[in-house]
């Protein structure tokens, strides 16, 4: 690993000159040394740290601190990032909404969140921000696919600039670095002083307890969050204000539709379990329900579910009930009927660019082996993943099947048919899956199939409002899907879990 930061508070300090007031970065915090008493006006941020006999402040307050502190310091050793003139070799013609987004972020002094629907070119906004901030930058991504995509983009945009990766088996911090949230959280204590701009792609991931330190332990004055869906089911999205900045720009899909996003249509496909599957499904449900009844449990609340998990671990009966519950789920998810329906859909769109989504790896591999469609899961290695996506883009492959890995942000241009096999109704997932095939095309009409097993638990997930199967049903369902784009309009459809 290059550029190891010496964590000096943990090592012995030598030759320290107490007359010299200096600020330095220490494992996610700022340490002010050589001051007998804290200069006035700094108590808002600094606390006395008796462990090292110095004053300490949270690193992410650097932007606010450095103004009043600057005159007091003999040396400022905290930031180790450089100014970089980034000349973009890529010809960028931003859309008006992308220009507006950048302007709004700049007006907020380079701190804020931009909300744009998937497919509206968030990445380009990020690129514009990099060129504007002209500082060493760290880009956070939730998946290896996104890492790959940003890497390819930065290599093209800034061919003379070293671009490093952290995560997915790499650890190469460079002036421009792309990191997974996981790896960034693990290494930020040592890297928090090396970047002037933090760019959070799919920024709704940041407020989790484990990831938020990326923002807290970094002193970067510039911060940009990009997301299609800032809302989190745990309500922690309000923390984005402190971690990154306010939402500076927001556009909804319907505000951009026609312009940028392809027109789309949702078609639910209901499949029936075979009689044998139905028997097995019912048996599994009965076994589980007997246990639930005997123990006075109900699964319609999180608490009920947690009690079931707890009780099921304690007895043979409980273990059986939990297994029955899982069996029922598996039957509903991986039913051969769904694969038959998929065969039908594929036959209806010969040669059309198709992306198939499954919830689990096993189903993805089964589709792949049955129809000989290339498969992407989290197990697929980066090289092969890139090869498959390249061949899909260039038209060598007409379809790909994937278990969730494409959920966020991977560039799959031109797909005109989407199939969701066994999905869940979490709003974010749905919007992102839709976004995948809503990329700008030449006036094409995208179709999204949602394949649901009838009369199973899953159907209730897909449609929380029980509706009789009447002719109006399809229309209503499409409306329900549309409502997911607009929180104010969505009534019965709350994010799952």
């Amino acid at each position, binding site marked *: 690993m290059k550029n190891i930061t010496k*964590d000096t*508070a*943990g*090592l*012995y*300090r*030598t*030759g320290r000159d107490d007359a010299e007031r200096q600020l330095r970065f*220490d*494992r*996610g*915090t700022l340490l002010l040394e050589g001051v007998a008493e804290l200069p006035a006006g700094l108590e808002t941020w600094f*606390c006395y*740290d*008796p*462990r*090292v*006999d110095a004053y*300490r402040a*949270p690193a992410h307050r650097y932007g606010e601190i450095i103004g009043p502190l600057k005159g007091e310091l003999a040396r400022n050793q905290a930031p180790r990032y450089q100014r970089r003139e980034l000349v973009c070799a890529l010809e960028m013609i931003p859309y008006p909404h992308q220009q507006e987004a950048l302007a709004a972020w700049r007006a907020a002094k380079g701190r804020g969140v931009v909300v744009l629907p998937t497919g509206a070119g968030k990445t380009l906004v990020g690129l514009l921000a990099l060129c504007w901030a002209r500082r060493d930058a760290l880009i956070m991504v939730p998946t290896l696919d996104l890492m790959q995509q940003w890497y390819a983009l930065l290599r093209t945009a800034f061919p003379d600039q070293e671009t490093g990766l952290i995560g997915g088996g790499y650890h190469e911090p460079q002036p421009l670095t792309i990191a997974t949230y996981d790896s960034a959280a693990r290494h930020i*204590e040592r890297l928090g002083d090396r970047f002037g701009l933090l760019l959070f792609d799919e920024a709704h991931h940041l407020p989790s*307890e484990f990831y938020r*330190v990326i923002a*807290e*332990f970094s002193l970067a004055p510039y911060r940009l969050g990009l997301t299609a869906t800032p809302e989190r089911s745990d309500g922690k999205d309000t923390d984005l204000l402190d971690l990154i900045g306010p939402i500076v720009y927001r556009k909804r899909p319907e505000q951009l539709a026609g312009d940028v996003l392809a027109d789309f249509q949702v078609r639910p496909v209901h499949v029936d379990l075979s009689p044998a599957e139905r028997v097995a499904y019912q048996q599994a449900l009965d076994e589980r329900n007997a246990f639930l009844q005997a123990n006075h449990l109900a699964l319609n609340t999180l608490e009920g579910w947690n009690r079931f998990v707890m009780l099921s*671990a*304690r*007895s*043979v009966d*409980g*273990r*059986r009930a939990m*297994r029955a519950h899982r069996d029922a789920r598996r039957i509903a998810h991986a039913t051969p009927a769904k694969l038959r329906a998929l*065969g039908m859909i*594929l*036959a209806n769109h*010969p*040669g059309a660019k*198709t992306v198939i989504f499954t919830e689990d790896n096993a189903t993805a*591999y089964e589709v*792949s*082996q*049955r*129809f*000989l*469609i*290339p498969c992407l899961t989290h*197990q697929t290695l980066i090289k*092969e993943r890139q*090869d498959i996506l390249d*061949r899909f883009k260039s038209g*060598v*492959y*007409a*379809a790909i099947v994937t278990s969730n890995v494409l959920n966020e942000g991977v560039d799959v241009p031109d797909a005109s048919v989407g199939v969701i096999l066994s999905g869940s109704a979490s709003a974010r997932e749905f919007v992102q899956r839709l976004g995948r095939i809503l990329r700008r095309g030449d006036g094409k009409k995208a179709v999204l199939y949602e394949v649901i097993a009838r009369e199973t638990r899953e159907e209730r997930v897909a449609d929380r409002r029980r509706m009789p199967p009447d002719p109006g049903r399809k229309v209503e369902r499409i409306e329900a899907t549309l409502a997911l784009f607009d929180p104010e309009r969505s009534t019965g459809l709350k994010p799952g879990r």
Partner: protein
Amino acid sequence: MLPSDLLFSHKRGAQVYPRFLRREQHAWAERVLNLIREHQHRTRGELHAALRALEGDSPDYRIVRGFAHLALNAAEFTLATGELEPEALRREVFTLAAERGGYGETQAREVLETVAPRYRLETATLREALYADLPENHLLTALPDFTPDRLVDRYNLAQAQGLLYSALYLRLIAHRNVPGEYRRLFQHLKFHGLMYAVEGNLDDGYQIYVDGPASLFKQTRKYGLQMAMFLPALLRVSRWEMEAMLQRDGQALSYRLDSQSPLKPLTAAPPAYDSLLEESFARRWEKLETPWALEREVEIVDLKGTVFVPDFALRHSDGRVAHVEIMGFWHPDYLRRKLDKLRRAAMPNLIVAVSERLNVGADDFRDVPGPVLFFKGKLEPRAVLDTLEHLP
């Protein structure tokens, strides 16, 4: 260590305890290890299925999984597909399938029938071979080096470590330990990126308060994992107590542990002395007839950010106390830090014994208040005794 879903604990009031294995549950360790041994040169998928079968409907299933997790962390799996290159095979088959212009089960079968003869395979086998490189098809090649007893020890330790995942801070009380143990304790704290403050004295013991840099602003569980990784190092110290303050589901809980605990450290005991120089000095001191007793239970001096732990304490029967620090063969960089520490520790009753082989002179010790003694080869106890008599 174990993932959270394989951890057990129970609460009594504000105290929390890891759930260690009950005697009758130890048997699972041997069963799991036997099963793993039987699966040498077989696939991970088969092994996992066998482990699932072993746990069956038993409520002990998470114990089985815990044992398997710890044991398989020490095992090795290798890709073994022979001549076949599944990735190339996939490319070939998927490209052919795409060229047909439409996907379907019939088309897929025709593609497989075309390709299979080239590899002298049945079509069904070819279908399977497409993903022969998946992790579940890897072969178990190196068995974990565990006896059932060691696996049980490791499991119980992992349960204790697991509680620390949600720790806000640790309070350690240590007393009457030898210098090497203290030094290693602080080295491990530093190694794991933790910070500490030391209070107390030689007679009443030392209280060491452990957390991380950012704990100053708000209590955080961010350092819990580091504390968990540090725990085995604490088990190497002779006499200590630990209280960990945990936060779980918004509740403050305390977990106490001490050197009486049956938990076993991971590694063999380190040597009693840090160097031969110290060891021979101690051995020869024993032969000396003197009221000064050489002890290894020493003082810790908190230097704010680091500690100074001298090698020996000397106690006279009349109550006088002195310390000895031996500087033998050190790296120049270490020497510089040691000098800085000696200056900052500013102990007037500390005798610094310096090997003449070191590239330092009396000048370097100007700011060190105690006596400095240069020696050739071995440090003579007599010379130290002489210096002692001249201490104020």
